[in-house]
């Protein structure tokens, strides 16, 4: 289930933190959406004063327009999808770090990641499951590597889903294992539709990273990832079969 974006992508900590830059007054974006918000408010207020069925409908319509205006004002880089997930793994930091560096041994046991091939110390080739079973592949470069502490990566030119990110390793308090923080940013294809479709298909980059990280943790702690796929069941309903084929069995 993942897109290239997948989880454990090439990891490397991004220097660019994936934070939405604040919209400033000089930013053309700061004006975007204002007209529709004003227009929408007007329509909504007018509708409210009618106190009729049509008035209510109008008010709702106006509210919708205000909403789209407000939505478009959310400052964000063009269709970048940001991913962030933190979890604690009950194993020593050095071990977690080393396992992460040897991720190529894990695919197959991860759900979304298909394969990782190292070409040299800094370069690797990745492939992951995308929406509707498409395989997404990319070359990645390790941009930063600090023993037992941090790895950053970015995809190289030609990636279907350009991405960069980093994973940070730190000690949990009092011997409780290792805190793992993954941040990533990726650009899904199809503009604004990409993230939407991925979400609908249950394959948003965030959820794919989360599920593979949980599996990574389960494998490190217990030697295997829990699963119920392929288990026997009674006859599923139509809806059950559809969601399984669309989003993949769990």
């Amino acid at each position, binding site marked *: 289930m993942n897109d290239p974006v997948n989880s454990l992508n090439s990891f490397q900590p991004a220097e660019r933190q994936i934070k939405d830059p604040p919209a400033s007054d000089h930013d053309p974006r700061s004006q975007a959406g204002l007209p529709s918000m004003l227009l929408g408010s007007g329509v909504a207020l007018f509708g409210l004063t009618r106190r009729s069925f049509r008035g209510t409908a109008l008010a709702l319509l106006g509210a919708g327009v205000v909403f789209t205006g407000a939505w478009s004002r959310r400052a964000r880089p063009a269709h970048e999808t940001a991913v962030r997930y933190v979890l604690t793994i009950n194993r020593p930091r050095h071990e977690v770090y080393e396992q992460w560096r040897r991720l190529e041994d894990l695919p197959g046991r991860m759900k979304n990641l298909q394969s990782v091939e190292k070409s040299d110390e800094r370069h690797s080739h990745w492939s992951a499951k995308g929406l509707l079973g498409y395989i997404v592949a990319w070359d990645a470069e390790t941009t930063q590597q600090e023993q037992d502490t941090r790895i950053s990566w970015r995809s190289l030119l030609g990636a279907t889903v350009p991405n960069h990110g980093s994973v940070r390793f730190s000690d949990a308090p009092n011997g409780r294992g290792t805190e793992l923080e993954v941040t990533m940013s990726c650009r899904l294809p199809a503009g604004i539709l990409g993230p939407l479709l991925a979400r609908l298909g249950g394959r948003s980059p965030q959820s794919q990273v989360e599920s593979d990280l949980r599996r990574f943790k389960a494998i490190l702690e217990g030697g295997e990832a829990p699963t119920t796929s392929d288990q*026997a069941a009674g*006859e599923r309903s139509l809806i059950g079969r559809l969601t399984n084929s669309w989003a993949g069995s769990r």
Partner: protein
Amino acid sequence: MRVETVPDPVIINPRDAIIKVTTTAICGSDLHLYDGYIPTMERGDILGHEFMGEVVEVGAEVKSLRVGDRVVAPFTIACGSCFFCRKELWSLCDNTNPNAKLPETAYGATPSGLFGYSHMLGGYAGGQAEYVRVPYADVGPLKIEDEQLKDEDVLFLSDIFPTGYQAAENCNIQPGDTVAVWGCGPVGQFAIKSAYLLGAERVIALDQVPERLAMARTQGKAETIDFSEEHVPARLREMTGGRGPDSCIDAVGMEAHGHSIDAIYDRVRAATRVLATDRPHALREAIMACRKGGTVSLAGVYGGFLDKVPMGAAFGKGLTFKMGQTHVHRYMKPLLDQIQDGKIDPSFLITDRVSLDDAPDAYARFAERRDGCIKVVLKP
């Protein structure tokens, strides 16, 4: 609810085992599924989380079991190596729910996976079947080596005996304590016995089903209150010198019955399955009745948002709340010892013995508390 023939389960992970089920049971918490109050059930799901049987296949990593071993499986699935398992909080295992995202969204974190108890809690096929796949089989199943013990003597180590026991243990019972138990279903009956095992002076049990109250008196040696006839908080106050019970166990959970205005309010909302899924009447009463500084111990299952829970009373009286799914692994061996020592015979509870094929009808009887049905045991 129906019986279907499906393919036999197979080993999927190296720590799996396949068990040929010899005896299984319907749990009161299965009724929450049956009645449709637990979301993320799908057609085709196999229920059942109380089961035992014979190991017929083990995965490559399972060293502690061999084919032919006779085992009872805990209903909670635990990896044995995460932070929570290491602390013996087995039902909070980090790693056994493949659908962790759902509870992480709904609850903030995921509890362990469970057999046959909704996709939100793992979607594992359950044990009301001929064969069942047991994941992490090197951690969970308890071997029963004493051939004198019948299935019915040890089956309830899978859930309800440990669940009733944990509910009583959570009460931190002190000499002289009175423990009140809401609900005289299977878990309530074990909570009553466990409270005495742990040193309670008196146990007062509440229900409205005559056979269940009778069982609490004769088997459990509890005093009883029929809540359809008496005003519970007032009666409990009278029975405890005006103090209230030192601990109150809610062995009812989300589908409480009641006759007061709050219970009717719950019924209306829960009938929609949307406005509410939980009817916490028993919990409200337990909070109101409990003595100052006492403990309210929840063994009954809650799933969603509770309405009109008197937190002011709980705060004002400085109550302690203890709750959660049972850490079954923690209790199986010690409770097996209690059974072997003759301190308790769990089979007292069984009222119905039927074949797996008759399970749908048994579910209906159990759900309607019909024909004296208290505990159904199924034979595949």
